[in-house]
Each structure stands twice: as structure tokens, then as C-alpha cells.
């Protein structure tokens, strides 16, 4: 056993930190910065290209596709970006679309999309959930009728994060309504500018606009945008789910929150034994989560398969952030960004609300536990 990172990994982490601290504006919001202002969005899009040029958006890809085949570095990158709250690694494009195309796409699709993802030029969004299909995703009903050289798509998706900013969408559609439900779904890609796609904002509890409804009205999707086989899209999506859950971004965000809170406690001189206990508790949980996350990366690095590992890290990471901040800050914890007297730039009030989302997004904690139990431990369905 060896619980150390290699010197190369440590050096990479430092390189990432140096890059971020050099480039981050001094007034960078101490919380999830998406959609606070157009200037910040522009900055993020511009920095996506910078990190793309460094080769950091294709770290875990196979070398034949221009990657470095190093999931550990990718995990370190996610950890650090989340710590500094600089979201320049497109979760959908880098995290989901690229590995899906590498595993299930064809050469044309890879040639078309991998370079733009690697360069940070294109932002992707995910069209999975529908008003009638959330946790039970296989119940989706957005229709894609296969025609000669295209599909005609009609229906609605919802909870589409960043659909209003994204350039492309990957989505699941019902291509054969008569087949058993897992066997009538096709995995498609579409340019968000395709006529017939429209986006309607959903404002979340924090007041932010990241979520959307997406409508498809007689949208023509070319046949070459189908990933995998016709009616086999469910299996592409299931394969993809395993890439979505290493939990490293939760790790960095939690580490930052904890450091901020410990710093606050030290500055203000909070000495209450119960508070010490809670913060220590969080530090221990974070250490456990750190190993669950990096273990996932390590297993990926050694191609050891996943079974129950990926969901575990996420269940773990998402349980904590909700209440700790307010417990430490007390009355001050309710102050939001921009308020007079607000500590830690209002990150606590923000995260307290955001935490509600984190146990739901990308598979609720309950679905995660079901996956651990059935896929990991082999319990019957």
C-alpha cells in the first residue's frame, strides 16, 4: 500500500493551483460562480479554452484520442477546480460525452466532437430527465421517429443544466414505443441551434438560473448523430452513468467549505466544544470521502472496473454540506451574498440551499443506494 500521490501527481496538482491562483480575479465569487454575470460567464468560457490548450480536458482519454490516459490527474484537476470554484471542466462534455463517444461512438463522431471538447470550445448539456421520467429514467417518452437519413424528435426534457448556454445536447429518446421499455431507446446528439429546440429557464431555490426545460418541436436530428445502435441507447447511457460519479468535484467543494469554516472559527475565536466536535467530525468525514473518491480514480487508472465504487463517493459527499456551515456561523449563516456584514461572501447561505440539489442531481441518494445494493452487493431487484 502507498497512500501518497506520485511526485508527478503532486507536481500536477501544484501546476493546477498555480494556474488558478494566477488567473482568478481577486473578487472571484466565493461560491458556485455560474450565471452571476455575463462577464463571469465569458471569463469561464475563455478559461475553458486555456485549460483545453494545456491538454487538461482530455487527461483520462486514451492516447490514441489525444489524451494522457491518466484518470488520476483528471480527478486531481476536478478536485482543485472545485476547491477554487472555477468551473472550466465541462462536466457534460469532458465527463460524459467524451468517454461515451470513446466507448460507444464511431470514428466520425469521435473525429467531429472530441477535438472541440478537448479544446474547451463547446459546452454540452444533457437531455435525460423528463417531467414523467426522473429516477425511473427508462420511462422516458420524448419521441424520435427514425426516418430515412434522420430522426424527427418531439417532446420535452427537463432539469437540463446549462441548456441556455450549451452548444450541443446529448439525449435519450423513445425510438420504438412498442418494444420493452429498455429496448426502445436511442442515444442522440444534437446541435442546440437546430430548428425546433427551445429552452425555458427554471429558477432554483438559490435564485440562480442553471436549470431549464427543453422543448423539441419536429426537430430533425441527422442519422449520423446516433451513438451506438438504434434502440440500444439505454445501454450506452448505463455505461455512461459510471463516468459521472467519481465525486471529486464534491470533494474539492467540501474541502474548501471546511477550510473556510475552520478559518472562520479560528478568526472569530469560536471555542465551543460542540462546535469543535462538529468541525472535527466533518474533517473526518471528508477524509473518508477523499479516499472513496481517489479510490475510484485509482481503480479507473488500473482498469479494475467499478461495481459499487462510484455511487458510494457521491452519496457520501452530498450528505454533509447542507447544515455544517449554518451550525458554525449561527445567525451570520443566513446572510446572503451582497448583504452587509456577510461572512465568507455568503457562501454558507448559498451552499445551504444548493445542498438540497446535490442529493438529487444525477441520481438521488436513494437511487445511489439502490445501485450500491443491487449492482454492488448483488441484492435482488
Amino acid at each position, binding site marked *: 500500500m502507498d*497512500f501518497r500521490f506520485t511526485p508527478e*501527481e503532486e507536481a500536477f496538482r501544484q501546476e493546477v493551483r498555480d494556474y488558478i491562483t494566477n488567473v482568478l480575479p481577486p473578487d472571484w465569487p466565493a461560491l458556485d460562480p455560474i450565471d452571476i454575470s455575463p462577464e463571469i460567464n465569458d471569463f469561464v468560457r475563455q478559461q475553458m479554452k486555456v485549460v483545453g490548450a494545456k491538454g487538461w480536458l482530455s487527461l483520462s482519454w486514451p492516447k490514441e484520442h489525444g489524451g494522457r490516459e491518466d484518470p488520476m490527474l483528471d480527478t486531481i484537476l476536478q478536485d482543485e477546480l472545485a476547491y477554487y470554484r472555477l468551473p472550466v471542466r465541462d462536466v457534460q462534455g469532458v465527463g460524459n460525452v467524451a468517454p461515451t463517444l470513446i466507448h460507444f461512438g464511431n470514428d466520425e463522431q469521435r473525429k467531429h466532437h472530441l477535438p472541440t471538447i478537448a479544446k474547451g470550445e463547446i459546452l454540452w448539456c444533457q437531455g435525460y430527465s423528463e417531467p414523467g421520467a426522473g429516477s425511473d429514467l427508462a420511462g422516458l417518452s420524448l419521441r424520435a421517429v427514425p426516418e430515412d437519413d434522420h430522426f424527427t424528435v418531439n417532446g420535452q426534457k427537463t432539469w437540463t443544466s446549462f441548456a441556455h448556454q450549451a452548444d450541443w445536447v446529448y439525449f435519450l429518446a423513445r425510438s420504438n414505443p412498442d418494444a420493452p421499455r429498455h429496448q426502445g431507446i436511442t442515444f442522440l446528439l444534437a446541435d442546440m441551434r437546430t430548428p425546433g429546440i427551445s429552452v425555458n429557464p427554471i429558477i432554483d431555490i438559490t435564485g440562480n438560473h442553471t436549470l431549464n426545460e427543453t422543448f423539441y418541436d419536429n426537430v430533425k436530428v441527422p442519422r449520423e448523430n446516433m451513438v451506438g445502435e438504434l434502440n440500444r441507447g439505454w445501454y450506452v447511457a448505463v455505461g455512461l452513468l459510471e463516468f459521472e460519479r467519481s465525486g471529486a468535484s464534491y470533494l474539492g467543494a467540501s474541502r474548501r467549505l471546511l477550510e473556510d469554516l475552520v478559518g472562520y*472559527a479560528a478568526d472569530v475565536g469560536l471555542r465551543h466544544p460542540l462546535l469543535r466536535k462538529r468541525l472535527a*467530525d466533518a474533517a*473526518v468525514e471528508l477524509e*473518508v470521502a477523499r*479516499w472513496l473518491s481517489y479510490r475510484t480514480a485509482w481503480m479507473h487508472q488500473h482498469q479494475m472496473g467499478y461495481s459499487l465504487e462510484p455511487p458510494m463517493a457521491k452519496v457520501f459527499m452530498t450528505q454533509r454540506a447542507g447544515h455544517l456551515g449554518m451550525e458554525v456561523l449561527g445567525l451570520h449563516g443566513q446572510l446572503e451574498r451582497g448583504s452587509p456584514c456577510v461572512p465568507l461572501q455568503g457562501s454558507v447561505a448559498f451552499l445551504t440551499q444548493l445542498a438540497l440539489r446535490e442529493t438529487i442531481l444525477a441520481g438521488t441518494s436513494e437511487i445511489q*443506494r*439502490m445501485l450500491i445494493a443491487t449492482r454492488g452487493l448483488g441484492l435482488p431487484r
Partner: protein
Amino acid sequence: MDLSLSEDQEMLRKMARDFLANECPKTLVREMEEDEKGYSPELWAKMAEQGWTGLPFPEKYGGVGYSFLDLAVLLEEMGRACLPGPYFSTVVLAGGAIMEAGSEEQKQKLLGEISEGKLIATLALTEPSASYKANDIQVTAAAEGGGHVINGTKLFVPDANVADVMVVVARTGGQGAEGLTLFLVDPKASGVSITQLKTIASDKLCEVTFDKVKVGQDAVLGEVGKGWPMVETVLQKAAVAKCAEMVGGAQQVLEMTVNYSKERVQFGRPIGSFQAIQHHCANMAIDVDGSRFISYQAAWMLSEGMPSTKEVAMAKSWTSDAYRRLTALGHQVHGGIGFTKDHDMQLYYRRAKAAEVTFGDGDFHRDVVASEIGLPDPA
């Protein structure tokens, strides 16, 4: 980064698992709970033949020369099997203290005898205050005629009833961590009396009283007045060693529970198909893995001689609580049957509760973590 065991460690684990499956069935575990001595001398001899009693000691002292991490692998299997007896007391506690503090001659003799399986030993540290802090050591050893006279009471001393020698932590002067000395004391010496306690884990914890117990100059382990740093090192290793045992027990409880929930049918279905049961099992799996990595990280750091105060405290605070949570969930899934004396679940639950409070409970270690991460001292 390498989160897997080495080939040798895998082999040790497999050998230990097979050996204990044969030699330490639950019938023996139950028998030893009722037994006066609490261990099987035949099994002890076989363990010594396997090299286990000398596992972490250098070869020059008759040991096998394995690392502390290797020892953790073995202890995990012992925890899985609920191995009864004085292995932990002899090898981890007394053996650890002798390694840290003993003179060359003491190490040669005592570690050699332990390795051969001829010597059972223990550490007499805690007192009626039930504290692991130096401040609370009140047993005294007064210098007299070139030797010392020991007075006072030690409590929760494991396996003193069968020990051939005890390492006794006593105050030779000073306050706090200053002036504490380690003594080698024969449990049969005049003035020593040993009373077995009745414990939740049915292990053999004892009250040991010292009434003007005279020991010679050669009884001092290490230097007079310099014993506490050695004890601290032993306690760090003991806490992590206990974590390794708990990880083994936790893994076994998870496996028992998952198997049971696949077999047990209610409402016409295996209960493992119900989400309530699935979520319990998922939570247990998270706790097993969490405990495993945080414990092995600490074991690895200790093995490498790295400073690890924070990581040790993290490991014990987490694993203490996780093992408790997990055994409780295991019971919930097993329903009534797990609550019976005939079922193995209760063996683990009782040991989890004992392990939770031994070498510092969750709160004790969280307090260490709080200071290590830079929080101000408590009010």
C-alpha cells in the same frame, strides 16, 4: 498511490483467514467467553508456530520482521473471526511497549519468548478514572533500596488473568507526562491481586491492585521518568490496530447481512429486494469501505514512521462510530433472529461496543482532530 495489499499481504490474509476458519470456529469463540482463561493454549501454540506471536518484531529478537501494516492485515482477520485471547495484549500492547522502551537485553529475552509463544504479556495503563491521559495516572512507584515499590489500582487491564508479565505504567514523580515510568511486573508477585471484570464483549479485562509491590532495578523498562512518550506511541498503534480488528468484523457483518437478506423470504420475496433493506445494506457498505481506507491509511503511515497524529485520530473516531452503526443496521436487517444468543450477530455487536470505547472513543479522537486542523482550544 497503491490502495491494494501486496502479494505477500494477500497471502498472509488468505492464510490467516483459512487458518482461523479451521482453528477458531464460533463454537470456540463462545466457549472462550465462558472460559476462565479466555483462550485456548493449543491454539496459541499453533499461532506461534505460524509466526504470528512474533510477526511485527525484528528477526534479531526472534520475530518475523513484518511491518505494522502487515500486522494490521492479520488483525483484520482476527477481528473477522472474533479471535479470543491475549494476542492483542501480548503483541500489540506489551510487545509494542517492549519494542519502544526496552533495553537490548529486555528485547532479546521478552520478545524472543513472546515470538516463541512462551510468554503472555499485557499493558496495565488505565485506572479507575478510565482515562488514556498522562495526567490521570495515579499508580505510584516509589524508589526504595535500588528498586521501586508500586501502589495503586489499574483497571481495564486486558488478559492480566493469564499474563506472565505486565508492563505497568506508574508515576515515579512529577506531573502530567513527566515522571511516568514503565515497569515489568510479575502478576504473581507478592502484593499483586487480580480480579476479572464481567464485560460486554466477554473478554478478560481485569482490575489489578498493587499493594506495596516490590520490584528490582531490572524491572524498569526504558528510563525512569521517561515512559510516557513510549506509551503514546503504543497507544497510537493500539488505536489503529483496534481499527483493523473492527474493519475485519465490519466486513464480516456486512457479508452476513447481505447473505441473510438474499435468503430470508417475507411477503413472498427475499427481503433484500425491499428498498428499506437495500438502503441499510448500502449504508453498511459505505461504512465498511470508509473504515477500511481511513484505517489502512493510518496503519500505513505508522508503518512508514510518518507523523500521523491526525490520521490516527481520524481513523479511530470514524471506525469506532462506523462499526457501531453498521452492527446496529446488521441487527435491524436480521430482525429477531440476530438478537438471539445462538446467532453470530450478537458476537460482533458486543465487540463493536467494547472496541468503540477502547483506546479513546469517537469524541476523544475528534478532540485531537479539532486541534490538528487548527481550531482554537476549547473554552
